[in-house]
C-alpha cells in the first residue's frame, strides 16, 4: 500500500476512533475536528518520507492529541464561544478506554435531544469522517442546509450540555434504540441512495457495518443490536450483484447468487437465527432481527424460484403485528404476490393505495405494474409503470424501470 493509500484507508477506518480520543482532550467538537484534520495532513507528509507506521490509528491519535493538548494549553478560555463538553473522568477500571470514548461519541451524536436528521448527519461526519458535501448529497439536501444543520446540532450539544458519555443502565435501552435507528437509516440510505447516479453508496454502508460491529462488541447480549448487525451483513452481502457492470439495476430474480458474499451471509444468518431463537412470548424479536431473518431467507434460497415466500410473508406478518408500517405492508404484499400468484399480490396491494405515506413512493406503482403485466393487463401495467418512473428519484432505478417498460 502506498503512503497516500494508507492515509485514505486510515481516513475510512480510523476517523471516528481518532476523533473520539481527541474530543476527550479538547472537550469541543470543532476544535477536535480541526486537530484530526491536521493530523491526517501531517500523516500524508510524514508517511511519504518515513513510511507507513505499523499502527496508523495509534500514530494519528497521538498526532491529533498532541495538537489538541497544544491548543488547550494556549487557548484563551475567556474567549470561548461555547461551553466545554460535559465529560466524565475516564473510569480507572475500564478495560477498553478507547472503545468507551468512541461509544461516548456515538451516543452524543445520536442523543434524542437532537433532531433525527441532525443525529444522522453528525454520526456520518464525526464518526464516519464524511464531508458535509458528501452527507448533503446522500440525503438530497443543499450543502449550506446540511452545514447549518450540523452547526446547530453542535451548538446545542455544547450549550444544552449534552454529555459525552455512554449512558447508564437506566437510560441505555432508549438511548441504544436511538443509536440503532440512526445506523439503520445510514444503511438504508446507503443501500438505495435516494438520488444520484449510483444505487449503493459504499461509504454509507461501510459506516453502518462499522457502527453495528462496534455496538455488538460492547452490547453482546442485546438482541436488537445483534439483529441490526445481521441485517447490515445480509444486506451488504448481496452488494456485488445489485448493480450490473453498466451500473444498471439487477433484479433479485436475475442476480448471480454465486457472487453473493458467503462468509457475510453465514455470519448474518447465524446471528439472525440466534436472536430469533432467544425471542418468544413476552420477549418479542426486534424489528431488525425480523428484517434480518427476511434477508436470510432470500440469501439461503439457491435460486429465486426456490425462495420460501410463505416464510417471508409470515415474517412480515410478525413485523406488522409489532408495528404497523406502510412500507413493510407494501413489501409483504409483494411477497404475497410471489407466494400466491399475481392476482393475490394485486389484491394485497389494493388497501395500500389509499395510504398517504405511499402516495409518492415509486415501489407501490412498480409492484402494481409488475403484477398487472404478469396477469396480461398490459395497458394498465404501462400506466402504473410510467407512474413509478415519474416518482423514482434514483437514476439507476429510473433506468431500470424505463428499460423494463420498453421490453
Amino acid at each position, binding site marked *: 500500500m502506498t503512503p497516500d493509500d494508507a492515509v485514505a484507508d486510515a481516513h475510512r477506518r480510523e476517523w471516528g476512533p481518532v476523533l473520539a480520543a481527541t474530543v476527550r482532550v479538547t472537550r469541543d467538537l470543532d476544535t477536535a475536528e480541526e486537530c484530526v484534520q491536521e493530523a491526517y495532513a501531517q500523516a500524508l507528509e510524514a508517511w511519504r518520507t518515513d513510511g507507513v507506521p505499523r499502527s496508523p490509528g495509534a500514530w494519528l491519535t497521538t498526532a491529533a492529541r498532541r495538537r489538541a493538548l497544544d491548543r488547550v494549553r494556549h487557548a484563551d478560555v475567556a474567549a470561548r464561544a461555547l461551553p466545554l463538553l460535559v465529560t466524565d473522568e475516564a473510569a480507572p477500571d475500564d478495560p477498553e478506554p478507547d472503545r468507551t470514548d468512541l461509544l461516548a461519541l456515538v451516543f452524543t451524536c445520536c442523543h434524542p435531544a437532537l433532531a433525527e436528521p441532525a443525529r444522522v448527519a453528525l454520526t456520518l461526519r464525526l464518526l464516519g469522517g464524511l464531508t458535509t458535501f458528501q452527507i448533503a448529497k446522500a440525503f438530497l439536501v443543499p450543502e449550506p442546509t446540511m452545514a447549518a444543520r450540523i452547526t446547530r446540532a453542535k451548538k446545542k450539544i455544547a450549550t*444544552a450540555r449534552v454529555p459525552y458519555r455512554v449512558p447508564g443502565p437506566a437510560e441505555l435501552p432508549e438511548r441504544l434504540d436511538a443509536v440503532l435507528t440512526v445506523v439503520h437509516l445510514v444503511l438504508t440510505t446507503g443501500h438505495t441512495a435516494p438520488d444520484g447516479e449510483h444505487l449503493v453508496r459504499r461509504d454509507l454502508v461501510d459506516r453502518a457495518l462499522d457502527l453495528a460491529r462496534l455496538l455488538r462488541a460492547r452490547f453482546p447480549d442485546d438482541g436488537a443490536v445483534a439483529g441490526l448487525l445481521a441485517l447490515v451483513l445480509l444486506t451488504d452481502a448481496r452488494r456485488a450483484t445489485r448493480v450490473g457492470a453498466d451500473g444498471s439495476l439487477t433484479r433479485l430474480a436475475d442476480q448471480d447468487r454465486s457472487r453473493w458474499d458467503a462468509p457475510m451471509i453465514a455470519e448474518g444468518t447465524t446471528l439472525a437465527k440466534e436472536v430469533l431463537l432467544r425471542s418468544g412470548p413476552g420477549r418479542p424479536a426486534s424489528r431488525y432481527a425480523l428484517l434480518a431473518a427476511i434477508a436470510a431467507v432470500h440469501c439461503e434460497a439457491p435460486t429465486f424460484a426456490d425462495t420460501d415466500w410463505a416464510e417471508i410473508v409470515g415474517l412480515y406478518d410478525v413485523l406488522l403485528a409489532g408495528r404497523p408500517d406502510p412500507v413493510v405492508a407494501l413489501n409483504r404484499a409483494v411477497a404475497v404476490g410471489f407466494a400466491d400468484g399475481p392476482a393475490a399480490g394485486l389484491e394485497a396491494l389494493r388497501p395500500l393505495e389509499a395510504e398517504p405515506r405511499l402516495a409518492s413512493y415509486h415501489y407501490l406503482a412498480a409492484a402494481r405494474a409488475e403484477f398487472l403485466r404478469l396477469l396480461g393487463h398490459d395497458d394498465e401495467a404501462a400506466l402504473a409503470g410510467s407512474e413509478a418512473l415519474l416518482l423514482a428519484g434514483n437514476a439507476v432505478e429510473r433506468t431500470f424501470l424505463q428499460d423494463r417498460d420498453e421490453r
Partner: protein
Amino acid sequence: MAGYLILLYVDEAAYAADKPDDLMDAHLKFQAAHGDALRGGAQLAPSATATAVRGAGTTPDYAAGTDAEVTDGPYVETKEALGGYYLIDVPDLDAALAVARDVPAAFGGIEVRPLIPMS
C-alpha cells in the same frame, strides 16, 4: 453544574374543566424527590391574568413617561400557556431530562431550556 429552566405548558381550558384534587400532592411529591436539584419554582396564575408590556426598556436612564405600551393578555397567545416553572441545577442535560420526566404534567408538556451562565 448547570442551570436549566423547566417550563410547564398547560392546556388551561382542560385544566379548568377537570382540575384533579391530587395535583398539588403530585407536585409536592416531585419536589421532595428532586429536592437536591431544585433551586426554585412557582405556579403561574392563568394567562387571562397576564399583562403584556411592549416596547419596555427603551427609555434612557429610566426617565418617567416611557413609550412602553401596556395591554391585556399574555405576550404570545398559545393554546398551551406557560403555567409554571422549576429552576434546577444539575450536571448535564441527561440529569435535567431525568428530573423533567418526573414533573407532573397531565395537562400539557414540558420544555427544558439551558440557562446561559452569568459571567
